[in-house]
């Protein structure tokens, strides 16, 4: 119970601080706010990809990174004058390619799991023996 309150308090502090930073950067009407958000999301995804042991967690981190890039593309499309609707079109293409990547990646993980009986990537050492 106390952990829920501490977590909620930390979340409130986090969001409040983020709000102050966002309002200082010009709020939701400036390109910088979206790009900063995208870079933070990309950094979180990169940490997950490098640090997690489970192969499916790594794939989820890749999805986070793809979404960060997509967010920056859509933000540029919304703010840069000559781009117009092209930003949204490129974002839709990226989404389709991400869906294809998730399909093939998860199929590969399931195929490896069938041989090695583990989803942990540090057990996949057949090449080093």
């Amino acid at each position, binding site marked *: 119970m106390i952990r829920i309150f501490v977590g909620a308090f930390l979340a409130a502090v986090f969001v409040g601080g983020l709000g102050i930073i966002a309002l200082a950067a010009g709020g939701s009407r400036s390109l910088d706010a979206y790009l900063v*958000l995208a870079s933070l999301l990309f950094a*979180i995804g990169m*940490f*997950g990809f490098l640090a997690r042991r489970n192969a499916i967690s790594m794939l989820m981190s890749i999805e986070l990174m793809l979404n960060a890039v997509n967010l920056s593309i859509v933000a540029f499309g919304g703010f840069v004058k000559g781009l117009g609707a092209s930003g949204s*079109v490129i974002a839709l293409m990226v989404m389709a390619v991400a869906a294809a990547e998730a399909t093939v990646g998860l199929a590969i993980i399931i195929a490896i799991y069938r041989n090695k009986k583990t989803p942990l990537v540090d057990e996949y050492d057949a090449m080093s023996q």
Partner: protein
Amino acid sequence: MAIGTTIPFTTIPWDDALFVVFAGTMLLAAILVVTMKDIIRCGLAMMVCFGALAGIYVIIGAPLVAAAEVLVYIGAISVLVLFAIMLTQTKDAPASLVFQTQAIPAALAAVLLAVVTILAIIATDWGALAERVATNTTELAKKLFSEWVLPFEIVGVLLLAAVVGGVFLAKRERGRDGEREGGQFR
């Protein structure tokens, strides 16, 4: 009835407030995705993260991208990931160790990347930017099927290839399962 551009009794615009709420939700959910121990909960947190991201797309003014985000990511990819988790869960795996030994250098690298990128973003002069404009969906459709029609077709072929490849890779080989039991990989 219009509800006005600012929150009642304050001077904070609605879009700024919603942006902060969505951004905070998205970042918190993303941190939970990469740090939580139970991988099923990681998948559910990923759905929350993508939902908040769809809200941010609406605030930017790209409603079609937001709808596609909900359909593709929350609807398809998250379900795919959850199914893959359920297919690869093992009872005897040492689940206590979530991170590899390189977790601390990875965290330092991630923080460094974020700091460098944010400094670059703030230092860059983006030139003459337009006001934030909502993307006209009719215009988007015209562009998609005239200027971008070749990438559109190629993406269609790519998706077909991915589906065929996924089915082929994940297919159980019935005839050879017996001889692979305790086979050359383990």
